[in-house]
């Protein structure tokens, strides 16, 4: 019940953020999708023992977040919800990998810990990137970008419909579960013996709704094909944005910047 409401608010929050009109929001959606993809590939392509080399990648979410006026706290909250699986799997690394690695001349830790922190960092970066994409673009424009990427229109229309009806159906489910809990004695979930008929009736109502939606689509000339509006043009600024980040990502990938900085400093210090 509460997780239901929570997920609905989460969707709505991201929706609201996507309505802003900052520089980042105004970029072409396709460009944002491609940049995000490249970013993700670069991020996960780092070797599992790589930690310092990953860190310059933090510039991307930080800059996007700042430019797009995206608050940090809700994204962090989401991250905490998602990370247990990553942590759960990652924690096995220190368990199984005991190869000593010298960090400081007088200190060693096992390679497993390094790879664990590497996984964790990658988790943070990739989660941030995905959430930032939707928070700066919104579902409608993502769908438009998918259209430009030649994703079949059936799939896009169906994705839009699913997205649209999530709020309607979550509210319906919420009311039903609420009515149930009013007449039951404060158990947490639904008793399994009732679950089938409760969900089944919701399903039947959903199917009926689907039929009505279909009718109303028909009345507006729907013949099985979905026509999105004409897409925005890609402007020079969009290309520059993509090119700039790409260049940065590639540089980060092939030159360990922190190590270079660090050796400069430590070198000077010595």
């Amino acid at each position, binding site marked *: 019940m509460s997780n239901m409401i929570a997920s609905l608010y989460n969707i709505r929050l991201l929706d609201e953020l996507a309505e802003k009109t900052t520089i980042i929001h105004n970029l072409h959606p396709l460009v944002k999708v491609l940049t995000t993809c490249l970013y993700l590939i670069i991020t996960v392509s780092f070797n599992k023992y790589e930690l310092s080399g990953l860190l310059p990648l933090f510039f991307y979410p930080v800059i996007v977040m700042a430019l797009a006026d995206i608050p940090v706290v809700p994204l962090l909250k989401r991250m905490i919800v998602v990370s247990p699986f990553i942590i759960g799997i990652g924690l096995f690394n220190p368990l199984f990998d005991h190869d000593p690695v010298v960090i400081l001349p007088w200190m060693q830790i096992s390679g497993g810990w390094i790879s664990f922190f590497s996984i964790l960092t990658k988790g943070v970066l990739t989660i941030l990137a995905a959430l930032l994409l939707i928070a700066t673009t919104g579902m409608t424009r993502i769908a438009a970008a998918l259209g430009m990427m030649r994703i079949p229109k059936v799939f896009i229309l169906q994705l839009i419909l699913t997205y649209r009806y999530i709020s309607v159906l979550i509210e319906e489910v919420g009311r039903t579960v609420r009515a149930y809990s009013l007449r039951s004695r404060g158990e947490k979930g639904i008793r399994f013996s009732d679950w089938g008929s409760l969900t089944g009736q919701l399903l039947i109502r959903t199917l009926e709704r689907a039929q009505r*939606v279909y009718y109303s689509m028909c009345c507006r000339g729907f013949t099985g094909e979905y026509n999105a509006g004409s897409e925005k043009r890609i402007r020079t600024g969009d290309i520059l944005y993509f090119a700039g980040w790409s260049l940065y990502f590639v540089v980060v990938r092939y030159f360990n910047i922190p190590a270079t900085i660090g050796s400069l400093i430590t070198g000077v210090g010595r």
Partner: protein
Amino acid sequence: MSHHIIQADNLKYTYPDGRQALNGVTFKILHGESVGIVGANGAGKSTLLMHLVGVLFPDEGEVRIGEVPVIKKTLPVIRQSVGMVFQDPDDQLFMTTVYDDVAFGPRNYKLPEEEVDKRVKSSLETVGILHLMDRPPYKLSGGEKRAAAIATVLAMNPDILVMDEPSSALDPKSRRRLITLLQRFAHTKIIATHDLDMVLELCERTIILKDGKVITDGPTVEILANEELMEKCGLEMPLGLQNCPVCGAKKAT
């Protein structure tokens, strides 16, 4: 715009599960008329409306819009001249923004994007929610959703507006706004509803359905004031016509 006459001729329709919802419905509606369709729950109102827009096809009988029969082949023409507003606006607003929703119909007819834009904006303006253009439908209030649903239909430039219970779930003021809005349209209007007082204000003519048949068809004031008839059809005289407790006068004569 040709002079659209809607003719239903002895319509019969049985749902696949065997329930006979229309049992010989005949009527003729002239251009510019405003007709209320009333009747108890399950009388067949919604089923009838769906025949007018070619969502359902009769087992027997025929519907004609102007000279065109409503059959599979003529649907593209029919649907451009008949627009239907459904009972639950959530069923009709299926895109992610109000703009896209209103543009859905015109885009299906492959209009150039500037024409689509013009139509979307003028329809939204007509119903008075141009400022809500970029909002997702779930953020609209009940009355706004209804207005958006009407705009989606207006963007198709229909000559005939068919509506299923347009005033349900609206608060009194939103309902009033809707009535004013509809009064302004010159379209032919066909409205199925339980809100008899709205019929009284909006429609000069009323058709009463009962068990899939037309029971009466005539001037609204006469029909809705006929207490015995209303009673028989599972209805009730609209409050606006019920006897005045002060002067005792029958309001309708």
